[in-house]
């Protein structure tokens, strides 16, 4: 099937799978390495993709994906368009906490080519958290890796009592109410 489905495969024991979708391969690579360097007590598989849909030929070899992180670079409008096009290939039930938007490059506002409102609208329309980070900076890279790792742990069901559905409460903005 062309769409990414959250529950059509069986999970592996003590394992979590993260899919990073974004047009900048170098940034994805760096983030993936930062995540793998973190201390964790379960196995992690990180899949990198430039866009969706994923090639159907290898679908039977792919494990079940627990969290999809869409990477948007604020310096490149193309990355936003790429993500918007890829969102069509994700099944609706993924958007119950198993999708997040990662916006990088926010440290340098003078390079900003993407409007902030557009990104915020994206997060609201798809009911998914939007994380802002600066992957070029070491500290922010490590912090983002830790956040994603924690989210992945929850999405894969390794944290008892907390499910991915609770991420929607993270997004409740007091100013909006």
């Amino acid at each position, binding site marked *: 099937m062309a769409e990414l489905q959250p529950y059509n495969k069986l999970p592996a024991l003590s394992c979590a799978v993260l899919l990073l979708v974004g*047009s900048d391969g*170098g940034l994805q690579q760096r983030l993936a390495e930062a995540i793998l360097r973190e201390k964790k007590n379960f196995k992690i598989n990180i899949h990198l993709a430039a866009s969706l849909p994923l090639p159907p030929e290898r679908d039977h070899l792919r494990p079940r994906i627990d969290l999809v992180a869409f990477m948007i670079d604020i*310096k*490149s*409008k*193309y*990355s936003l*368009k790429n993500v918007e096009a890829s969102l069509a290939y994700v099944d609706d039930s993924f958007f119950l906490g198993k999708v997040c938007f990662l916006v990088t490059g*926010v*440290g340098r*506002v*003078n*390079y*900003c*080519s*993407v*409007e*902030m*409102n*557009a*990104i*915020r609208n994206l997060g609201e329309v798809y009911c998914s958290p939007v994380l*802002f980070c600066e992957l070029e900076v070491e500290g922010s890279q490590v912090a983002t890796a830790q956040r994603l790792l924690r989210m992945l742990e929850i999405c894969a069901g390794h944290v008892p009592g907390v499910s991915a559905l609770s991420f929607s409460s993270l997004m409740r903005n007091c*100013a909006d109410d």
Partner: protein
Amino acid sequence: MAAGAAPRPARRGGRREGGSNGPRREAAPGLVSVMESVEAVARTLLSFGRLSRGLPFGRAHGLSSRDPLLPLAPRSQENADPQRTAFLLRKQWTLYSVTPLYRFSNAHLRDYARLLSAFIAAEKQKGLAVEVGVELDIKVAVSSLPYLKGSDQDQAAILVQLSSRSPASPKNSEEKLIWSGWFCCVSGDNLSKNVPEDFTCLPLFLVNGAECYTSIVGSWFQKTFDCSFRRLAISPLILSWMAAMWTGCKVDKTASAMELVFSVPCLPQPLDISYAIHPEDAKALWDTVQKTPGEIIQEEVDVFMDCLYSHFHRHFRIHLSATKLVKVSTAIASAHCDGIIKFLQSQYLTGVLMLLTELAISQIE
């Protein structure tokens, strides 16, 4: 204008006709037919508006969402005297944002000029050589430009000029202008309202001349009026706004081509792509995109830029949206992302200054 102009093979400086666009969203059906109707319609001059504060540069986590009606295109000033502003045109001005000046008074301009020239002489004595070689006698002139303001509440612009005369030449020989800088505030009500008494709001500073003089004059102003200067950079988002706004402005004489310069990141050798568009085609495109004259919203700017990018992609298979827009040149003005501006039309000078003042105020706050 043919619907399918043959593209030149070179990537640099290709002259593109922006008219034949494939993927057009909610615009008129055929561009050729639109072109004819556009020429027939007499476009009225766009009215003033004000950029809302929701400009996306400032805070890393984005600004609160503003209403989408971000207005304005520069209004043509019929009453501006072109001769008085002629010396401001066609020069490259570097932009700075300035915090409000403490206890600055328009009545003491001559005193300020005297103090500044004494300061410059002292700096030269100290050995901070401003120029190696010929000893120059530097004269400072500080004057007021009362016609450069948007509303009556604005402070009149202040012009500082440094001219030099070589001591070897005769006493009445002409002085050469070596540096000029001017402070101005056009429709800066948002800032001047919130500032206490004794403070003068002149948030925009434009400089033309050597960097050494800029730093000397800047440090004198900082010491005397307790203000601070910061380079004003222009983000690609704002540059695309400028491109859209200025394209829509009516120009009397034959306008120069609209040029966009992009810099491609992450390459071992830097690559710059220059995309030139015939001004009438660009204006026709913008006119079909813009729905309400006098108002511009972000979506319209996005559609306009997307049309240009997809046209380029169709011919060269390069996604310009993945590159960084560094320079925009239109018939009215040209702006570079490092904060360098060139005014080309005196009619729209105030309008462009209003936009720049708004950017400077956003940077200060």
